[in-house]
């Protein structure tokens, strides 16, 4: 125990952290709660002297917006699709990387590069790859395609309108999923590779003595021993997925959708931003709290499922 006379010193040393937390974390959380439960709250209106009744009007309004349901659907779809795909891919790549000797360091660096690259910049590159560039003279039909369509054409396929005006929702989603998976890989590979390298090699020698086939080594030994890292990667993947926003901007720009259908790919976080822009802090807060509740529930479910399978 610290001497009581010295308590003030302890508080003094802690004060910078505490003050920052109070100002930038505790107060905003409190404020979010407050605004969410003030019916139709808006900052400008509040400055104008308007008062707001206490209630759950904001939540009802948010749920009634059809845009909100679209955002919820987009976010959930992206999560459900990208987390499993990126986790499985990262696992396979990490296992492969771990099993090769030559060029391991070089390949590791290559796989890790996207992590240190700005995600908006990567998004713009992806947009160019999936894009239609230029128009045929005197026609409104696209003429030149991004590299993806070039490859499709090379193999004799029909080019697909991925992201431009007139593109389908499915094509848009496909591009988003590919992009988010690709963007999520490096971090997951890094974590899983670290986990793999800390597994005692003798387990593999023991498995070899027993003539264990490669597949069984992966499913019965590697994956269980890697399960704490897998759990971490999956949980953080879901949390990140529900906060998806900048990746959409990266590819579709602030319209959050193809030119002829703005907002079609908007996400939960995007919805919050939009509400803020329109001075509807009450709605934004309510949406943020709903997002928080969803993340909380998903994480709890994750924890429950994972606890049964993780071997620490």
């Amino acid at each position: 125990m610290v001497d009581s006379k010295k308590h003030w010193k302890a508080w003094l040393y802690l004060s910078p952290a505490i003050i920052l937390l109070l100002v930038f974390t505790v107060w905003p959380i409190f404020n979010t709660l407050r605004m969410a439960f003030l019916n139709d709250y808006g900052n400008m209106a509040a400055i104008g002297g308007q008062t707001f009744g206490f209630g759950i009007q904001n939540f009802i309004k948010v749920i009634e917006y059809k845009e909100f349901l679209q955002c919820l659907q987009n976010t959930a779809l992206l999560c459900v699709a990208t987390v499993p795909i990126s986790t499985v891919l990262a696992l396979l790549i990490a296992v492969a990387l771990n099993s090769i000797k030559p060029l391991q360091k070089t390949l590791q660096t290559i796989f890790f590069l996207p992590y240190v690259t700005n995600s908006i910049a990567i998004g713009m590159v992806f947009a160019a790859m999936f894009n239609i560039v230029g128009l045929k003279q005197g026609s409104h039909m696209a003429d030149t395609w991004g590299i993806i369509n070039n490859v499709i054409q090379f193999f004799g396929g029909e080019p697909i309108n991925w992201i431009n005006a007139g593109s389908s929702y499915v094509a848009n989603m496909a591009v988003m999923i590919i992009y988010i998976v690709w963007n999520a890989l490096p971090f997951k590979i890094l974590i899983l590779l670290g986990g793999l390298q800390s597994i005692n090699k003798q387990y593999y020698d023991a498995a070899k003595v027993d003539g264990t086939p490669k597949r069984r080594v992966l499913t019965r030994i590697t994956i269980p021993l890697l399960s704490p890292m897998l759990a971490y990667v999956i949980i953080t993947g879901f949390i990140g997925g529900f906060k998806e926003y900048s990746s959409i901007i990266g590819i579709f720009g602030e319209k959050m959708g193809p030119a002829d259908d703005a907002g079609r790919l908007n996400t939960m976080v995007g919805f919050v931003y939009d509400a803020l822009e329109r001075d509807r802090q009450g709605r934004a807060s309510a949406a943020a709290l709903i997002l928080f509740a969803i993340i909380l529930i998903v994480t709890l479910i994750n924890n429950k499922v994972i606890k049964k399978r993780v071997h620490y």
Partner: protein
Amino acid sequence: MKVVLENLTKIFPSRDKKSQNQVVAVSDFSFEIPDGQLVGLLGPSGCGKSTTLYMISGLQKPTSGKIYFGDDDVTELSTENRGIGLVFQNYALYPHMTVQQNIMFPLQNLTGKDKLSKQQMLDRAHEAAKLVQIDELMDRKPSELSGGQQQRVAIARALVKMPRVLLLDEPLSNLDARLRLQTREEIRRIQKETGITTVFVTHDQEEAMSISDIIVVMKLGVVQQIGKPQSVYDDPANLFVAKFLGTPPINVLEGKVLDGKVYIGDQAVMSVSGVEDMDVYIGIRPEGIEPAPDGVFECKLNNVEVMGRDASVVSTHTAALSPVIRAIISSDIHVDTASETVKYNIKPHKFFLFSKETEERIYFEVK
């Protein structure tokens, strides 16, 4: 089934290509392990014991030489086809599986005509667990077991496939002294019961001596001597083997042979024939010297340690290579502790001469 090692050599290349310091872990090892025997591979750390074991297991490929199981050349055969059971130094039990799952794991990999039904696997696992007396612990995880219990699980896992050869890499080194004694008896019993040809690696000479049918003493990758534990102890081939076997260790002194007499300093301690005049190392087992009033070998007396049945006379001599010279005698024999010196008589069959140059044994006849 006998196991034959023929000029077995393992060279590990140096890490960077420029430097030439490759490691010769095992050098030209030839030996035939008779069927059903327990062979103790003994030597100090880093002498190539594990490497030898891993080459027999197939986890490491020999640089040159051949390995036969029975009459089959298995040198190029992969590990899983050799039919061996291997117990690792730190057991390598799968931490996420229960004891039962661990023991059953090797059986689940069997395919084709060897494939077992679930019930057969359970029966075999229980049989193996019974043999090592852990059938009560089948549902525990390795982390819930003591070191000794984990060790038994590892042996059960190695035995469950009924291997042709059982290989154990320092299996007792993680156990406390008491458990080590108990478990080595256990290993001996299991080996006798199953009759599986077994190679047991250890750096502990007492361990090797106590359970092996045959011991192989190694040093820096080279086999020094092979034989029954007692005969290697009684008849060491060189100074290294003499020093490595026995607790307390052998007393080693510098001396010389002159005109058929062995001298320590200026004391003539033994008359020998068949040895030319030369400088030698003299090895005398602690049980080979006995205080006697008319003793031929006088040392400065330090003290006498009585340990129940035995007593240990601790003395010093300037020619000794170790700090003290120890004699183990019955505690009934009286030693005058007030005296400055002690005189010993020497038993000739506990007295060895080694060339000072090569450290090889010099044989002689007592006159």
